[in-house]
């Protein structure tokens, strides 16, 4: 990777004495995942001097392997779509949910009752602005993230791999930020005019500036791995949908399994549940995984015929928000700004779209020569609004997931729900299905005779945190 320093005349800052102090970079991006690479691609293409500091050496594995169509406009705009199209990732045309419901159902009466249900959506059912195709992708994040990072580099960003940002010093100079980095055996300082925190769940700035707040409601936990040879046609609801993402509900409250195709033979599988359930399993990852999967005999059977390829990996400290997602000389994008829950595969889409919004404001800030917080107001407003909508959608889903399925199957709301599943949250206030779902949850909560009342989940957050 390139490590050249480019100096230019017009990007320095005047000191009080009138001397010209050069920053090493206009923008330093912490983290070379999808959010960081996307921000760097936009900024470098606009002529800014950009550096990306990535603490790991790519390729490296990463969770979050299923995309939504809202990634398409961004991948296309930064010019990387061809590389993605040519990488051989499985196409994702839709999503499917399956359940084998056995909770509080009387067994007297009729014989042979099958209470399983399923739902599917196809992205093609709804046209989406700026999206030119009926599919998105499932990706091996090791490969996908490397393609994006190389792309940022090809656009002119300086990429430092194996460079961990330890701290960002905003105080010693009012116009510059000094990044203290660990590069191999050395500590190195770099100066920049502003910082984009794309450090993912490391949340480098959020932790350093004490802006990170655990989510008051969600405390989920995931354990995941890859299997080879899982017969996806057996798990599918209909023929031809075996390469959809599958969300298999477990007959355990707030718990589900993801099934994501990585290639023809490899499938990513993860269990998501409440963190305290995992604590109760006394940290035995393998037993925990199989205990949960076995609550769905069809799933257990399918997975037992397949071969596990990787160690089990876990994701804890799950859901959080930031009191601020931007400030003087910084913005946060992707998971570094917020993470709620993986249920709708929104992670990479939020990374890309937040980077796109941030880059627009940063390019304008650079033109104005002013990187103070008000310059990032458009970014902040749009991202907060989108986050509020997707947070509530996720909350309703956990509170009463039957409602989600009912809305998907109701022609009046299907496309609007699909819009949310496509990740298309950024350009409007509130999707009308969300309003209707909220009212429905309130109705079910207040009416004990409503048939969905017993299905209210324990996760309850009708009012998202105000930040």
């Amino acid at each position, binding site marked *: 990777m390139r490590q050249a320093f480019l100096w230019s005349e017009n990007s320095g800052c005047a000191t009080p004495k009138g001397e010209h102090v050069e920053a090493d970079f206009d923008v330093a991006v912490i983290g070379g995942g999808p959010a960081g690479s996307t921000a760097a691609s936009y900024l470098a293409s606009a002529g800014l001097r950009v550096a990306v500091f990535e603490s790991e050496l790519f390729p490296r594995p990463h969770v979050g392997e299923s995309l939504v169509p809202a990634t398409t406009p961004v991948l296309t705009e930064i010019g990387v779509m061809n590389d993605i199209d040519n990488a051989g990732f499985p196409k994702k045309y839709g999503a499917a949910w399956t*359940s084998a*419901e056995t909770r509080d*159902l*009387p*067994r*007297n*009466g*009729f014989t*042979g*009752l099958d*209470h399983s*249900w399923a739902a599917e959506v196809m992205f093609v059912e709804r046209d989406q602005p700026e999206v030119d195709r009926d599919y998105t992708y499932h990706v091996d994040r090791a490969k996908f993230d490397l393609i994006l990072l190389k792309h940022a580099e090809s656009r002119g960003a300086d990429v430092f791999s194996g460079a961990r940002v330890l701290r960002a010093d905003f105080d010693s100079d009012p116009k510059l930020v000094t990044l203290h980095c660990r590069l191999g055996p050395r500590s190195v300082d770099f100066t920049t005019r502003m910082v984009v925190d794309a450090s993912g769940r490391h949340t480098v700035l959020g932790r350093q500036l004490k802006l990170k707040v655990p989510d008051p409601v969600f405390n989920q936990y995931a354990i995941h791995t890859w299997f080879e040879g899982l017969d996806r046609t057996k798990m599918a609801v209909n023929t031809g949908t075996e390469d959809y993402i599958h969300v298999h509900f477990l007959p355990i409250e707030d718990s589900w399994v993801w099934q994501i195709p990585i290639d023809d033979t490899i499938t990513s599988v993860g269990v998501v549940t409440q963190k305290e359930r995992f604590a109760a399993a006394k940290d035995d990852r393998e037993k925990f995984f199989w205990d949960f999967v076995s609550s769905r005999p069809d799933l257990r059977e399918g997975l037992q015929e397949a071969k596990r390829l990787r160690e089990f990996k876990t994701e804890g400290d799950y859901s959080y928000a930031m009191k601020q997602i931007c400030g003087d000389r910084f913005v946060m994008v992707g998971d570094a700004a917020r993470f709620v829950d993986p249920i709708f595969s929104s992670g990479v889409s939020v990374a890309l779209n937040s980077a796109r919004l941030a880059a627009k404001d940063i390019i304008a800030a650079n033109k104005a020569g002013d990187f103070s917080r008000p310059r990032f107001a458009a970014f902040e407003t749009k991202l907060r609004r989108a986050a509020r909508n997707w947070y509530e959608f996720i909350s309703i889903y956990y509170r009463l997931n*039957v*409602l989600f*399925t*009912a809305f998907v*199957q*109701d*022609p009046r709301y299907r496309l609007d729900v699909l819009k949310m599943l496509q990740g298309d949250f950024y350009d409007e206030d509130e999707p009308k299905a969300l309003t209707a779902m909220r009212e*429905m949850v309130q*109705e079910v909560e207040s*009416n004990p*005779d*409503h*048939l*969905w009342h*017993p*299905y209210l989940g324990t996760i309850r957050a009708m009012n998202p945190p105000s930040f």
Partner: protein
Amino acid sequence: MTAAHLSEQVVKDKLIEFIRETFLSGDPDRELDEGTPLLEWGVIDSMRIVVLLAFIRRELSTDIPMTQISGANFRNVRKIAALVVH
């Protein structure tokens, strides 16, 4: 749109036929009638309600709001038919 043009008996027959075929594997022993306690016997549950509402919307041209999904309204076929017709 409502199903006022359909008589209550026709609605009952259509409901029974649909429930038999969709939820009861055809109900070979003819156990289902208009008074069968659907919820207590586990014929209808939270998800099947959704399927049933879709059928009523599609085939009987009646939109039953989701707020109406109560135990009282869906106790048996007789009750559901009354909901559809009135």
